[in-house]
């Protein structure tokens, strides 16, 4: 069925759920005409069901919410606190933010997170690349250029989140990865030839055998719906894309999925379903898990990726760990055989690569901030 690209003003149409109020919008996921209150209700209820069915949390858990100040993490913080209250999850929630040191982007979004701390009453912890690694992203980009910088950022962020989570002594980290993100990741892994990641990327809980498990409560939530929810609820979030993102390969998959959603909205969930159903042999060579010799972090090689990259930066060898190169020196026998572009799918919470989302489909509403 051809879908309209803009939600029409419904006129006399009634909300299909309550049949009482006038329908105010068209739900991106199902194209149903729905009123605001019912939209909030169904949005929140679906997330609640995902949390229950996948047993994401248990009472007494301390949960760190990866907070960037962007729409996904802001809505996640808002909805989780709300559901925690409403359904008595019994969770201790925290906001955990990573400062990569990107001027004009991160410093502004951090202000938003600080406001969120006050608005939602959730304690905030900020960890920075500068403190952890001695490098900001701006400095890294100056050194390596614009091509592989997402890789550095993603690898560093993953560790930063874990370090922050350890400092907060939490049981789990919840990130705002939404259905669009996961669908893009499935496609990217097919395009890049990464069968190992393909088998893991649709899991709602990852890293259970690592330092801190992570979960993605928004796995079945559409990005458009998150934006709509944030807009109507007037939530405070920072909506500019990372200044380094236009060159990312993920952009191809993103464009494609946007076009796809216009023709068939359910395709996003279908991609995730395909990803879950792929017949991948469990005997496929998977990396063996050990620890990094240099920093003790989880790693399948002698040195974890972050240490390899750092070594490269510190030694002025920006290509170290990028592409299928040999490691530092043959004595150390470090070889990271994985092509580095694949790493860029990690931690996409903060690099949303999203052009001002409201402009896309809110043409009807006056929304420019």
């Amino acid at each position, binding site marked *: 069925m051809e879908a309209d690209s803009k939600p029409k003003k419904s006129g006399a149409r009634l909300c299909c759920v309550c049949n009482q109020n006038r329908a105010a919008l068209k739900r991106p996921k199902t194209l149903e005409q729905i009123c605001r209150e019912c939209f909030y209700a169904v949005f929140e209820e679906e997330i609640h069901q995902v949390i229950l069915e996948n047993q994401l949390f248990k009472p007494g858990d301390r949960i760190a919410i990866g907070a960037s100040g962007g729409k996904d993490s802001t809505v996640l913080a808002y909805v989780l606190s709300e559901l925690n209250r409403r359904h008595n999850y019994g969770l201790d929630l925290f906001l955990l933010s990573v400062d990569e040191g990107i001027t004009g982007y991160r410093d502004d979004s951090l202000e938003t997170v600080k406001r969120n701390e006050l608005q939602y009453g959730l304690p905030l912890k900020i960890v920075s690349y500068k403190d952890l690694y001695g490098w900001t992203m701006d400095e890294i980009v100056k050194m390596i250029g614009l091509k592989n910088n997402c890789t550095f950022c993603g690898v560093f962020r993953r560790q930063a989140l874990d370090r922050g989570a350890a400092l907060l002594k939490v049981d789990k980290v919840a990130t705002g990865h939404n259905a669009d993100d996961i669908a893009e990741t499935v496609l990217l892994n097919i395009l890049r030839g990464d069968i190992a990641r393909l088998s893991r990327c649709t899991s709602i809980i990852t890293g259970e055998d690592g330092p801190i498990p992570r979960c993605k409560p928004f796995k079945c939530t559409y990005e458009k719906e998150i934006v709509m929810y944030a807009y109507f609820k007037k939530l405070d979030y920072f909506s500019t894309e990372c200044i380094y993102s236009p060159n990312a390969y993920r952009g191809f998959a993103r464009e494609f999925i946007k076009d796809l959603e216009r023709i068939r909205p359910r395709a996003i969930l279908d991609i995730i379903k395909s990803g879950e*159903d792929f*017949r991948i042999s469990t005997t496929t060579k998977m990396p063996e898990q050990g620890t990094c010799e240099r920093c003790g972090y989880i790693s399948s090689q002698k040195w974890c990726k972050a240490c390899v990259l750092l070594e490269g930066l510190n030694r002025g060898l920006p*290509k170290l760990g990028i592409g299928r190169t040999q490691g530092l020196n043959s004595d150390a026998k470090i070889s990271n055989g994985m092509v580095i572009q694949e790493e860029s799918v990690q931690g996409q919470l903060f690099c949303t690569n999203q052009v001002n989302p409201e402009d896309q489909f809110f043409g009807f509403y006056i929304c420019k901030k």
Partner: protein
Amino acid sequence: MACNSSTCNSSGCYKGYEEEEQPKPNTKAAVNGGNSCQNLCVKCKVNEPVCCGIGGENSRFCKDCFKNNLYGKFKQAVTYNAMITPPDKVLVAFSGGPSSRVVLQFVHEMQYKAQKNYDANKDKSLPVFGVGVAFIDESSTHSFTSLHIEKAIEDIRLIVSNLAPPSKELFVVPIESIFSSDGIDGKERLKELLDAVSDVTGKEDLLIRLRILLLQKIASENGYTRIVLGTCTSRIACHVISATVKGQGYSLSADIQYVDSRWEIPVVLPLRDCPAQELNTLCSLDGSLKIVELLNGPCSGINGLVSSFVKVLQEENPSRECTIVRTAGKLTPFHFNRVPEIHDSNVPSATRRHQKRYTLKPNGSLSSDSFCPICSSPLKKSNFPSSLRSHGNQQNPDLIASACSSCQFQILPKDPSLMEEFLSVLPQQMITKAKHGDQGDFSLLR
């Protein structure tokens, strides 16, 4: 900027760096010390190169080597998977496009060589395999003038008759003959069927299914033992993406292997390793490989979107299609993705041993899969709860419940009151399949 190349020496490096800034293929060739034969075919190093393979600058071939390279890929696929053996009769599906023209040509050349060997051989122990050609006339689904399609059919007849000896039978069959009833009735029924499908992508996919069913019908009614399709790497890459997008991730690995024995007559894909770009180049280089242009119209809906997407990716990186197919190739195939074992004593034991050695090892359980009656895709067991079977339409509870989720969404009518009518216009083969749906095919379990 430091040069990271480990193979350069300082003076050559500086020059190489400078050349990189102003790409001029000829001077670059002169500078690359090692490759002194940039102006010669990389394979035979004798002739002038006339074209590039997928590898770009590094794979410039002369016409003969280019063709031999492609033929080599074809031949390897056939031998490695035991696709064609002496007692076989293969039906080549011909659409008129470059891929089917090339596969027809290559199959013919293979048959021709086999014929020559047979003639030269005294004891005549190895019979030559038979080849037939099938063209499906889909003009009733479009608005072609009958002149256009008649001209196309004439061209095809000419092509096939020129590919003798050995002579090949040509079947020109209209798509509506999938229905057992004849002529006008068939056209009406087909129109009714396609009109009942509201989703554009569903319509296209249903038509593809009907095509396969018709090929099966032609092959089995005329004693053919194999169906050869000219499906190339590019088309498979598109299928990988579009199947993922339609939620068919489980069954994807069934459709992209060299051999597909789900049906009565196994379907083989000998051009699986050949990119469309190379097949197109071959057709344009070789004047005798005439293509028959049929304006089937571009695909719209999801299939068209995926095609353009893959095209964009190819432009960014010419080996992207190969990577996609290679990744999908790592998914576990099904037990029917190999040629059924040969028990024919006419086939020399050497061939049988060869086939045993090289066909895919069956994966894990050989348990019978259930298949979607409409698209024949294997169904994941958990997606098919038995409780569903008792619901719905009393006459045909099997079909609705046993269809895969993709067909349920894009092909079956949403309105339950239209279901009866829809089922009445489906080809009989699909209804029968539904009845035997979850019994699977036990013949391969021996």
